[in-house]
């Protein structure tokens, strides 16, 4: 696999590219292929897998209960992504227009909260939105509501958790593509008589599209697969695809069903990546 074309001595190539290649094949390719294989197998009587091929798991996915969860997870992930783009783009634009020095400081300011334990940040939202918590107290004092609102363990609070959790990861790729945008382009557009709105629509938006699409991938897919945010803020009452997958490997022990749901997530991911590759080069995808 590591036979070099240009150089005669294959040792440096093997020493350098070898470990990463072996690691990726062993711990990414093989498990991914195996989970696809398992999704077509039967469930063992006491959990685990019986190696007789069947489509049962995929038929179960079309079941009303599971289908409803899948649909709801998709909806929530779409809303999360849309809000992250709408809130994140102007914010990324604001940072990108600052001088390099200020911008790097503002980006640092964005990174610091990410060093805080993410579950504790989610827990903080929970504390703020408790039935007798500060948000409810403020709403009561202002007379907006007559009795405390029950926020905790609702989809709304989970959505807030999802948005605040993924917004930084939407901002970063959009920031780097806006930052690359050349000022001369915008000036040229203005000089040619375009209004700011037209310039934005016809120049800025298309040129920063790779960043926007990266942001979509980096928010939509993890939002679709999370179970920790729903666990922390939904109190086990709000279930998304991620929770269902996790449960198949915990208490319920239906591996093939968990595998089939995972394959579904893989397909959705592959579809998004395919769409991305139609618009921009995969290698240019901003992932950090």
């Amino acid at each position: 696999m590591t036979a070099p074309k240009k150089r005669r001595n294959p040792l440096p190539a093997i020493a350098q590219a070898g470990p990463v290649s072996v690691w990726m094949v062993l711990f990414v390719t093989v498990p991914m292929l195996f989970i696809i294989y398992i999704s077509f197998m039967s469930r063992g009587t006491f959990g685990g897998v019986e190696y007789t091929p069947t489509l049962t798991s995929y038929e179960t996915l079309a079941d009303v209960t599971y289908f409803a969860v899948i649909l709801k997870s998709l909806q929530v992930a779409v809303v999360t992504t849309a809000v992250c783009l709408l809130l994140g783009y102007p914010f990324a634009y604001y940072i990108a227009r600052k001088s390099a020095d200020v911008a790097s400081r503002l980006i640092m300011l964005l990174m610091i909260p990410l060093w805080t334990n993410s579950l504790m940040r989610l827990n903080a939202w929970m504390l703020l939105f408790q039935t007798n918590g500060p948000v409810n107290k403020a709403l009561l004092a202002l007379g907006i509501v007559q009795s405390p609102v029950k926020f905790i363990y609702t989809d709304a609070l989970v959505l807030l958790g999802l948005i605040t959790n993924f917004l930084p990861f939407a901002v970063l790729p959009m920031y780097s593509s806006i930052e690359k945008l050349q000022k001369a382009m915008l000036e040229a557009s203005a000089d040619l008589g375009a209004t700011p709105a037209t310039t934005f629509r016809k120049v800025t938006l298309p040129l920063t599209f790779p960043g926007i699409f990266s942001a979509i991938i980096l928010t939509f897919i993890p939002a679709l697969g999370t179970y920790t945010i729903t666990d922390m803020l939904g109190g086990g009452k709000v279930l998304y695809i991620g929770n269902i997958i996790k449960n198949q490997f915990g208490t319920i022990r239906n591996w093939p069903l968990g595998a089939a749901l995972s394959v579904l997530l893989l397909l959705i991911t592959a579809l998004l990546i395919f769409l991305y590759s139609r618009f921009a080069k995969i290698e240019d995808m901003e992932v950090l």
Partner: protein
Amino acid sequence: MKNKKLLRQRRNAFWSAMYAAVIYALFYIPVLVMIQFSFNDAKRNYSWEGFTTQWYGKLFSFGNHDLWESLVYSLVIAVAATVISVVVGVLGGIGLKKFEFRGKKFINLMLYVPIVVPEIVLAVSMLIIFMTVGIRLGMGTIVIGHCTFCIPYAVVTIKGRISGDNETLQEASMDLGANRVQTFWRVTIPSIMPGILSAAFLSFTLSIDDVIMSNMLASARQSTLPVLILSVNRTGITPDINALTTLMVLVMVAGMLVMSGLQRLRRKREAREMAEAEQRISTLRG
């Protein structure tokens, strides 16, 4: 006319700064609340019951064994995952940039998989493999899991640091009689050092904060700090956990400040040396 335009610009600048402040507030409010509740005078954090610093004292009397054990467990895993990821990632970043080989495209594609695929899918597929092959779950499997998503980030970071300059420097080094190994340690590695540091920092932060891999690939006996928090959350988080995570952020911020301070010093020194060298050259010429 001009005044009006200036006024409008100022107003726009004001509102966009306000907007940015609101977004920053979204990021900082949870952090501040987390810190505030480390001073909460209550057994468990549900509502604010008054100010106390007792939790920091209790934390360092090491009464909460589970908490400290899980922190040590997390730290050991994070250090191991960071070291492995940086070594494999640096070698891989250099190798994938420098050499052409069959299957390179495939490996590059595989490197994107852990970045884009939902973590639960990766975790579950690794879990199935480990269970089927019969590998005992525990620290080893968690480290493997963390490395699998840290290595791609390390490779991307390192690749971004390697440019044409590095090739030229390496060739110069070899021309001057250094062998491959010497060139690697004395030229290649120092020239990508900032990339190595940021890859290490990123790997460490990803590993220490990871929940999903750490949860799925763990043995029933021992859990990392985030997994402990996830399970404690059901019964209510105790303020000593807030105290611990508060201290962890402070350490991270302090470490980052020291690192950027050192970098600034190094850049200053390099600039000075450069100026001195130029002066010497001009004196020689003069």
